[in-house]
Protein backbone atom coordinates (compact mmCIF):
# COMPACT_ATOMS: atom_id res chain seq x y z
CA UNK A 1 0.00 0.00 0.00
CA UNK A 2 2.78 2.38 0.92
CA UNK A 3 4.57 1.67 -2.36
CA UNK A 4 1.39 2.26 -4.36
CA UNK A 5 1.05 5.59 -2.55
CA UNK A 6 4.61 6.59 -3.44
CA UNK A 7 4.02 5.58 -7.05
CA UNK A 8 0.83 7.60 -7.45
CA UNK A 9 2.28 10.60 -5.59
CA UNK A 10 5.25 10.64 -7.97
CA UNK A 11 2.96 10.60 -11.01
CA UNK A 12 0.16 12.92 -9.93
CA UNK A 13 0.68 15.19 -6.94
CA UNK A 14 4.44 15.59 -7.13
CA UNK A 15 4.84 15.35 -10.87
CA UNK A 16 8.49 15.97 -11.73
CA UNK A 17 7.84 18.44 -14.51
CA UNK A 18 4.62 20.13 -13.54
CA UNK A 19 5.09 20.42 -9.78
CA UNK A 20 8.83 20.16 -9.13
CA UNK A 21 10.23 21.85 -12.24
CA UNK A 22 12.77 19.10 -12.91
CA UNK A 23 13.50 18.26 -16.53
CA UNK A 24 12.01 21.41 -18.03
CA UNK A 25 14.49 21.49 -20.94
CA UNK A 26 13.31 18.27 -22.60
CA UNK A 27 9.74 19.16 -21.64
CA UNK A 28 9.93 22.34 -23.70
CA UNK A 29 12.40 21.11 -26.32
CA UNK A 30 11.29 17.61 -27.26
CA UNK A 31 7.54 17.81 -26.65
CA UNK A 32 6.71 19.09 -30.10
CA UNK A 33 6.01 15.74 -31.70
CA UNK A 34 4.20 12.89 -30.01
CA UNK A 35 6.60 10.12 -31.04
CA UNK A 36 9.72 12.03 -29.97
CA UNK A 37 8.03 12.86 -26.65
CA UNK A 38 7.22 9.19 -26.08
CA UNK A 39 10.71 8.00 -27.03
CA UNK A 40 12.38 10.51 -24.74
CA UNK A 41 10.06 9.58 -21.86
CA UNK A 42 10.76 5.85 -22.16
CA UNK A 43 14.49 6.58 -22.16
CA UNK A 44 14.07 8.74 -19.04
CA UNK A 45 12.15 6.02 -17.17
CA UNK A 46 14.85 3.51 -18.10
CA UNK A 47 17.76 5.71 -17.03
CA UNK A 48 16.05 6.85 -13.82
CA UNK A 49 15.39 3.26 -12.73
CA UNK A 50 18.90 2.18 -13.65
CA UNK A 51 20.53 5.18 -11.96
CA UNK A 52 18.62 4.50 -8.75
CA UNK A 53 19.49 0.81 -8.81
CA UNK A 54 23.19 1.64 -9.14
CA UNK A 55 23.50 4.68 -6.86
CA UNK A 56 21.50 3.21 -3.98
CA UNK A 57 24.09 0.54 -3.02
CA UNK A 58 26.94 2.99 -3.67
CA UNK A 59 25.41 5.51 -1.29
CA UNK A 60 24.43 2.98 1.35
CA UNK A 61 27.49 0.73 1.45
CA UNK A 62 30.25 3.06 0.31
CA UNK A 63 29.44 6.67 1.16
CA UNK A 64 27.31 6.38 4.30
CA UNK A 65 29.43 3.62 5.78
CA UNK A 66 32.55 5.76 5.53
CA UNK A 67 30.91 9.07 6.46
CA UNK A 68 31.40 10.53 2.99
CA UNK A 69 27.85 11.82 2.42
CA UNK A 70 29.20 15.18 1.32
CA UNK A 71 30.52 13.51 -1.84
CA UNK A 72 27.02 12.49 -2.95
CA UNK A 73 26.59 15.18 -5.60
CA UNK A 74 29.90 14.56 -7.33
CA UNK A 75 29.72 10.74 -7.10
CA UNK A 76 26.13 10.55 -8.31
CA UNK A 77 26.63 12.76 -11.35
CA UNK A 78 29.76 10.84 -12.38
CA UNK A 79 28.07 7.47 -11.91
CA UNK A 80 25.07 8.63 -13.94
CA UNK A 81 27.24 10.01 -16.73
CA UNK A 82 29.35 6.85 -16.92
CA UNK A 83 26.26 4.66 -16.71
CA UNK A 84 24.49 6.44 -19.56
CA UNK A 85 27.58 6.17 -21.73
CA UNK A 86 27.93 2.48 -20.87
CA UNK A 87 24.29 1.72 -21.62
CA UNK A 88 24.61 3.50 -24.94
CA UNK A 89 27.62 1.39 -25.94
CA UNK A 90 26.00 -1.85 -24.80
CA UNK A 91 22.73 -1.14 -26.59
CA UNK A 92 24.54 -0.18 -29.77
CA UNK A 93 26.49 -3.41 -29.78
CA UNK A 94 23.93 -5.95 -28.61
CA UNK A 95 20.40 -4.60 -29.09
CA UNK A 96 20.55 -2.35 -32.16
CA UNK A 97 16.75 -2.19 -32.49
CA UNK A 98 16.37 -0.74 -28.99
CA UNK A 99 19.33 1.53 -29.60
CA UNK A 100 17.75 3.03 -32.69
CA UNK A 101 14.57 3.71 -30.67
CA UNK A 102 16.10 5.11 -27.47
CA UNK A 103 19.76 5.67 -28.20
CA UNK A 104 19.47 9.14 -29.63
CA UNK A 105 17.95 10.44 -26.41
CA UNK A 106 20.55 8.97 -24.07
CA UNK A 107 23.27 11.65 -24.29
CA UNK A 108 20.66 14.32 -23.62
CA UNK A 109 19.65 12.58 -20.42
CA UNK A 110 23.11 12.69 -18.80
CA UNK A 111 22.66 16.30 -17.83
CA UNK A 112 18.93 16.08 -17.26
CA UNK A 113 18.20 17.39 -13.78
CA UNK A 114 15.30 14.98 -13.35
CA UNK A 115 17.67 12.00 -13.17
CA UNK A 116 20.09 13.52 -10.64
CA UNK A 117 17.07 15.04 -8.90
CA UNK A 118 15.29 11.72 -8.33
CA UNK A 119 18.45 10.12 -6.96
CA UNK A 120 19.06 12.99 -4.53
CA UNK A 121 15.40 13.11 -3.50
CA UNK A 122 15.44 9.39 -2.70
CA UNK A 123 18.35 10.01 -0.36
CA UNK A 124 16.75 13.11 1.19
CA UNK A 125 13.50 11.24 1.82
CA UNK A 126 15.38 8.35 3.42
CA UNK A 127 13.74 5.78 1.14
CA UNK A 128 14.77 2.12 1.22
CA UNK A 129 15.64 0.23 -1.95
CA UNK A 130 12.07 -0.76 -2.93
CA UNK A 131 10.66 2.70 -2.22
CA UNK A 132 13.51 4.33 -4.14
CA UNK A 133 12.91 2.15 -7.19
CA UNK A 134 9.15 2.77 -7.11
CA UNK A 135 9.70 6.51 -6.67
CA UNK A 136 12.07 6.58 -9.66
CA UNK A 137 9.81 4.57 -11.93
CA UNK A 138 6.82 6.61 -10.82
CA UNK A 139 8.74 9.83 -11.38
CA UNK A 140 9.65 8.65 -14.88
CA UNK A 141 6.05 7.65 -15.56
CA UNK A 142 4.91 11.07 -14.37
CA UNK A 143 7.46 12.62 -16.72
CA UNK A 144 5.93 10.56 -19.54
CA UNK A 145 2.36 11.55 -18.68
CA UNK A 146 3.28 15.24 -18.66
CA UNK A 147 5.33 15.01 -21.88
CA UNK A 148 2.63 13.18 -23.84
CA UNK A 149 -0.21 15.37 -22.59
CA UNK A 150 1.77 18.46 -23.41
CA UNK A 151 2.70 17.19 -26.87
CA UNK A 152 -1.03 16.98 -27.55
CA UNK A 153 -1.58 20.52 -26.28
CA UNK A 154 1.23 21.86 -28.44
CA UNK A 155 -0.13 20.23 -31.56
CA UNK A 156 -3.34 22.17 -31.00
CA UNK A 157 -1.36 25.40 -30.50
CA UNK A 158 0.26 25.11 -33.93
CA UNK A 159 -2.60 26.55 -35.94
CA UNK A 160 -3.69 29.24 -33.48
CA UNK A 161 -3.58 32.95 -34.09
CA UNK A 162 -1.29 34.14 -31.30
CA UNK A 163 -0.19 37.74 -30.57
CA UNK A 164 3.26 38.28 -32.00
CA UNK A 165 5.15 38.83 -28.75
CA UNK A 166 3.70 35.63 -27.27
CA UNK A 167 4.62 33.43 -30.22
CA UNK A 168 6.97 30.52 -29.64
CA UNK A 169 8.25 30.04 -26.15
CA UNK A 170 6.02 32.42 -24.13
CA UNK A 171 2.75 30.81 -25.27
CA UNK A 172 4.26 27.37 -24.69
CA UNK A 173 5.06 28.34 -21.09
CA UNK A 174 1.56 29.74 -20.56
CA UNK A 175 0.08 26.51 -21.93
CA UNK A 176 2.35 24.60 -19.54
CA UNK A 177 0.97 26.76 -16.74
CA UNK A 178 -2.58 25.65 -17.57
CA UNK A 179 -1.58 21.97 -17.74
CA UNK A 180 0.19 22.40 -14.42
CA UNK A 181 -2.91 24.08 -12.96
CA UNK A 182 -4.98 21.04 -13.88
CA UNK A 183 -2.46 18.83 -12.04
CA UNK A 184 -2.94 20.95 -8.91
CA UNK A 185 -6.40 19.39 -8.81
CA UNK A 186 -4.80 16.11 -7.77
CA UNK A 187 -3.56 17.62 -4.50
CA UNK A 188 -4.78 15.46 -1.66
CA UNK A 189 -6.12 12.69 -3.92
CA UNK A 190 -3.39 10.20 -3.00
CA UNK A 191 -3.73 10.94 0.70
CA UNK A 192 -7.47 10.51 0.29
CA UNK A 193 -7.05 7.02 -1.19
CA UNK A 194 -4.24 5.69 0.99
CA UNK A 195 -4.43 8.11 3.91
Amino acid at each position, binding site marked *: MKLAGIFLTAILTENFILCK*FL*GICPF*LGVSKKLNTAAGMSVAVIFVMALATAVTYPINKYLLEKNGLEYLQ*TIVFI*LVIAALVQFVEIVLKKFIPSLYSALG*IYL*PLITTNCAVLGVVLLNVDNGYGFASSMINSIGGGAGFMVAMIMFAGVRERLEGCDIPKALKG*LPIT*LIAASLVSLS*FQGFAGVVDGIFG
Partner: protein
Amino acid sequence: MAENKSLGKEFSKGIIKENPVLRLVLGTCPTLAVSVSVTNSIGMGIAATLVLVCSNVVISALRKVIPSKIRIPAYIVVIASFVTIVQMLVKAFVPALNDALGVYLPLIVVNCIILGRAEAFAGKNSIPASFLDGLGMGIGFTFALIVMATIREIIGAGTFLEGIDSLTKLFGVTGFTGFHILSQPVAMLTMAPGGFLVFGLVMAAANKLAERSGKPKAELGGCSACPMAASCAILNKGESCEAPAEKAQESKEGSAV
Protein backbone atom coordinates in the same frame (compact mmCIF):
# COMPACT_ATOMS: atom_id res chain seq x y z
CA MET B 1 42.83 49.59 -25.03
CA ALA B 2 40.91 47.50 -27.54
CA GLU B 3 41.63 44.54 -25.30
CA ASN B 4 39.98 46.27 -22.33
CA LYS B 5 36.95 47.17 -24.37
CA SER B 6 36.35 43.61 -25.52
CA LEU B 7 36.79 42.31 -21.96
CA GLY B 8 34.15 44.78 -20.81
CA LYS B 9 31.89 43.40 -23.50
CA GLU B 10 32.38 39.82 -22.28
CA PHE B 11 31.16 40.99 -18.90
CA SER B 12 28.20 43.11 -19.95
CA LYS B 13 26.77 40.84 -22.66
CA GLY B 14 25.51 38.29 -20.12
CA ILE B 15 23.42 40.81 -18.24
CA ILE B 16 20.99 42.02 -20.89
CA LYS B 17 21.95 41.20 -24.46
CA GLU B 18 22.65 37.51 -23.94
CA ASN B 19 20.82 37.08 -20.66
CA PRO B 20 21.12 33.33 -20.01
CA VAL B 21 17.54 32.89 -18.83
CA LEU B 22 15.54 35.32 -20.93
CA ARG B 23 17.56 35.33 -24.15
CA LEU B 24 19.46 32.01 -24.29
CA VAL B 25 16.71 30.07 -22.44
CA LEU B 26 19.14 28.15 -20.25
CA GLY B 27 18.67 27.13 -16.62
CA THR B 28 14.90 27.14 -16.75
CA CYS B 29 14.46 24.52 -14.01
CA PRO B 30 16.07 26.49 -11.14
CA THR B 31 14.52 29.71 -12.45
CA LEU B 32 11.01 28.33 -12.17
CA ALA B 33 11.61 26.53 -8.89
CA VAL B 34 13.49 29.16 -6.90
CA SER B 35 11.78 32.38 -8.01
CA VAL B 36 9.10 31.98 -5.34
CA SER B 37 10.82 34.48 -3.07
CA VAL B 38 13.35 37.25 -3.69
CA THR B 39 15.56 36.10 -0.82
CA ASN B 40 15.86 32.58 -2.24
CA SER B 41 16.55 34.04 -5.67
CA ILE B 42 19.38 36.21 -4.41
CA GLY B 43 20.85 33.24 -2.53
CA MET B 44 20.55 30.93 -5.54
CA GLY B 45 21.97 33.64 -7.81
CA ILE B 46 25.03 34.15 -5.62
CA ALA B 47 25.62 30.39 -5.30
CA ALA B 48 25.32 29.78 -9.04
CA THR B 49 27.50 32.82 -9.86
CA LEU B 50 30.21 31.57 -7.53
CA VAL B 51 30.19 28.13 -9.15
CA LEU B 52 30.07 29.65 -12.63
CA VAL B 53 33.01 32.01 -12.07
CA CYS B 54 35.21 29.39 -10.37
CA SER B 55 34.46 26.63 -12.89
CA ASN B 56 34.94 29.01 -15.82
CA VAL B 57 38.37 30.05 -14.52
CA VAL B 58 39.54 26.49 -13.80
CA ILE B 59 38.22 25.10 -17.09
CA SER B 60 39.81 27.96 -18.99
CA ALA B 61 43.12 27.33 -17.22
CA LEU B 62 42.94 23.63 -18.09
CA ARG B 63 41.63 24.09 -21.62
CA LYS B 64 44.90 23.00 -23.23
CA VAL B 65 45.30 19.98 -20.94
CA ILE B 66 41.83 18.43 -21.28
CA PRO B 67 41.56 16.20 -24.36
CA SER B 68 38.53 17.24 -26.36
CA LYS B 69 37.05 13.73 -26.43
CA ILE B 70 36.50 13.58 -22.69
CA ARG B 71 35.94 17.27 -22.09
CA ILE B 72 32.30 16.98 -20.99
CA PRO B 73 33.01 14.51 -18.14
CA ALA B 74 36.03 16.62 -17.18
CA TYR B 75 33.90 19.77 -17.05
CA ILE B 76 31.30 17.94 -14.96
CA VAL B 77 33.94 16.91 -12.40
CA VAL B 78 35.20 20.50 -12.08
CA ILE B 79 31.67 21.89 -11.77
CA ALA B 80 30.56 19.21 -9.30
CA SER B 81 33.56 19.93 -7.07
CA PHE B 82 32.70 23.62 -6.84
CA VAL B 83 29.02 22.83 -6.27
CA THR B 84 30.02 20.61 -3.35
CA ILE B 85 32.14 23.42 -1.90
CA VAL B 86 29.31 25.94 -2.26
CA GLN B 87 26.86 23.44 -0.76
CA MET B 88 29.10 23.09 2.31
CA LEU B 89 29.48 26.87 2.66
CA VAL B 90 25.72 27.43 2.45
CA LYS B 91 25.02 24.65 4.95
CA ALA B 92 27.51 26.15 7.38
CA PHE B 93 26.70 29.85 7.10
CA VAL B 94 23.11 30.17 5.81
CA PRO B 95 21.27 27.00 6.92
CA ALA B 96 17.89 28.67 6.32
CA LEU B 97 18.79 29.06 2.63
CA ASN B 98 19.92 25.45 2.46
CA ASP B 99 16.50 24.34 3.70
CA ALA B 100 14.69 26.68 1.30
CA LEU B 101 16.64 25.63 -1.79
CA GLY B 102 16.63 21.94 -0.90
CA VAL B 103 17.52 19.68 -3.78
CA TYR B 104 18.00 22.63 -6.17
CA LEU B 105 21.29 23.54 -4.51
CA PRO B 106 23.14 20.32 -5.53
CA LEU B 107 21.28 20.47 -8.85
CA ILE B 108 23.41 23.49 -9.81
CA VAL B 109 25.68 20.73 -11.20
CA VAL B 110 23.29 20.10 -14.08
CA ASN B 111 22.33 23.75 -14.56
CA CYS B 112 22.79 24.14 -18.30
CA ILE B 113 24.08 27.70 -17.90
CA ILE B 114 27.25 26.46 -16.24
CA LEU B 115 28.02 23.51 -18.52
CA GLY B 116 26.87 25.62 -21.46
CA ARG B 117 29.33 28.42 -20.68
CA ALA B 118 32.11 25.91 -20.08
CA GLU B 119 31.49 24.35 -23.47
CA ALA B 120 30.70 27.51 -25.42
CA PHE B 121 33.16 29.94 -23.85
CA ALA B 122 35.59 28.87 -21.13
CA GLY B 123 36.92 25.92 -23.11
CA LYS B 124 38.07 28.27 -25.86
CA ASN B 125 38.97 31.58 -24.23
CA SER B 126 41.59 33.10 -21.94
CA ILE B 127 41.28 33.15 -18.16
CA PRO B 128 40.38 36.86 -17.69
CA ALA B 129 37.76 36.70 -20.46
CA SER B 130 36.27 33.51 -18.97
CA PHE B 131 36.20 35.08 -15.51
CA LEU B 132 34.28 38.11 -16.78
CA ASP B 133 32.00 35.96 -18.91
CA GLY B 134 31.13 33.85 -15.86
CA LEU B 135 30.56 36.91 -13.70
CA GLY B 136 28.35 38.59 -16.31
CA MET B 137 26.30 35.46 -16.97
CA GLY B 138 25.92 34.87 -13.22
CA ILE B 139 24.69 38.41 -12.66
CA GLY B 140 22.33 38.05 -15.63
CA PHE B 141 20.94 34.83 -14.13
CA THR B 142 20.49 36.51 -10.74
CA PHE B 143 18.86 39.52 -12.39
CA ALA B 144 16.31 37.36 -14.25
CA LEU B 145 15.59 35.40 -11.06
CA ILE B 146 15.01 38.60 -9.09
CA VAL B 147 12.68 40.05 -11.75
CA MET B 148 10.53 36.92 -11.70
CA ALA B 149 10.67 36.54 -7.93
CA THR B 150 9.63 40.16 -7.36
CA ILE B 151 6.44 39.61 -9.36
CA ARG B 152 5.70 36.23 -7.82
CA GLU B 153 6.46 37.21 -4.24
CA ILE B 154 4.56 40.52 -4.20
CA ILE B 155 1.43 39.18 -5.91
CA GLY B 156 1.60 35.59 -4.70
CA ALA B 157 2.66 36.01 -1.08
CA GLY B 158 2.04 39.71 -0.49
CA THR B 159 5.55 40.27 0.82
CA PHE B 160 8.84 41.58 -0.51
CA LEU B 161 12.32 40.46 0.64
CA GLU B 162 10.73 38.22 3.28
CA GLY B 163 13.44 36.50 5.35
CA ILE B 164 16.27 38.58 3.88
CA ASP B 165 17.87 38.81 7.33
CA SER B 166 19.20 35.26 6.89
CA LEU B 167 21.50 36.74 4.21
CA THR B 168 22.16 40.23 5.64
CA LYS B 169 23.10 38.59 8.96
CA LEU B 170 26.35 37.55 7.30
CA PHE B 171 27.29 41.21 7.00
CA GLY B 172 26.25 42.08 10.52
CA VAL B 173 22.93 43.69 9.57
CA THR B 174 19.96 42.30 11.45
CA GLY B 175 16.41 43.38 12.20
CA PHE B 176 15.13 44.00 8.66
CA THR B 177 12.84 41.14 7.68
CA GLY B 178 11.12 42.50 4.59
CA PHE B 179 8.00 44.45 3.65
CA HIS B 180 4.40 43.40 3.93
CA ILE B 181 2.51 44.67 0.90
CA LEU B 182 -0.71 42.80 0.12
CA SER B 183 -3.08 41.46 2.74
CA GLN B 184 -4.89 39.11 0.36
CA PRO B 185 -2.30 37.65 -2.03
CA VAL B 186 -3.06 35.41 -5.02
CA ALA B 187 -1.43 32.22 -3.75
CA MET B 188 -1.51 30.57 -7.17
CA LEU B 189 1.52 32.61 -8.27
CA THR B 190 3.75 31.02 -5.67
CA MET B 191 2.68 27.55 -6.80
CA ALA B 192 3.85 25.66 -9.88
CA PRO B 193 1.34 27.05 -12.43
CA GLY B 194 2.25 30.61 -11.42
CA GLY B 195 5.89 29.89 -12.17
CA PHE B 196 5.18 28.89 -15.75
CA LEU B 197 2.73 31.77 -16.20
CA VAL B 198 5.06 34.51 -14.91
CA PHE B 199 8.01 33.06 -16.85
CA GLY B 200 5.92 33.08 -20.04
CA LEU B 201 4.82 36.69 -19.52
CA VAL B 202 8.29 37.93 -18.56
CA MET B 203 9.72 36.25 -21.63
CA ALA B 204 7.02 37.81 -23.82
CA ALA B 205 7.97 41.22 -22.38
CA ALA B 206 11.66 40.52 -23.03
CA ASN B 207 10.83 39.53 -26.62
CA LYS B 208 8.87 42.74 -27.07
CA LEU B 209 11.79 44.81 -25.79
CA ALA B 210 14.24 42.89 -27.97
CA GLU B 211 12.04 43.38 -31.00
CA ARG B 212 11.95 47.12 -30.38
CA SER B 213 15.74 47.23 -30.46
CA GLY B 214 15.81 45.03 -33.54
CA LYS B 215 17.11 41.81 -31.97
CA PRO B 216 15.70 38.38 -32.79
CA LYS B 217 13.43 36.93 -30.11
CA ALA B 218 14.52 34.19 -27.73
CA GLU B 219 14.41 30.77 -29.35
CA LEU B 220 14.33 27.56 -27.50
CA GLY B 221 16.67 24.84 -28.62
CA GLY B 222 19.19 27.47 -29.48
CA CYS B 223 20.86 24.15 -30.18
CA SER B 224 24.18 25.93 -30.39
CA ALA B 225 23.76 27.04 -26.78
CA CYS B 226 22.94 23.53 -25.59
CA PRO B 227 25.93 21.89 -23.91
CA MET B 228 25.08 18.53 -25.38
CA ALA B 229 24.90 19.80 -28.96
CA ALA B 230 28.04 17.94 -30.00
CA SER B 231 26.71 14.57 -28.93
CA CYS B 232 23.04 15.28 -29.60
CA ALA B 233 21.87 12.71 -32.11
CA ILE B 234 18.62 14.53 -32.80
CA LEU B 235 20.72 17.36 -34.12
CA ASN B 236 23.09 15.00 -35.92
CA LYS B 237 20.16 13.39 -37.67
CA GLY B 238 19.58 16.76 -39.26
CA GLU B 239 16.59 17.71 -37.15
CA SER B 240 16.63 20.54 -34.68
CA CYS B 241 14.84 20.31 -31.34
CA GLU B 242 12.32 22.78 -32.71
CA ALA B 243 10.18 21.37 -35.47
CA PRO B 244 11.20 22.73 -38.87
CA ALA B 245 7.55 23.57 -39.63
CA GLU B 246 7.55 26.54 -37.29
CA LYS B 247 10.71 27.98 -38.78
CA ALA B 248 9.24 27.72 -42.26
CA GLN B 249 6.07 29.38 -41.06
CA GLU B 250 8.02 32.18 -39.44
CA SER B 251 10.12 32.89 -42.50
CA LYS B 252 6.94 32.99 -44.56
CA GLU B 253 5.47 35.55 -42.19
CA GLY B 254 8.69 37.49 -42.29
CA SER B 255 8.56 37.74 -46.07
CA ALA B 256 4.87 38.69 -45.96
CA VAL B 257 5.69 41.62 -43.69
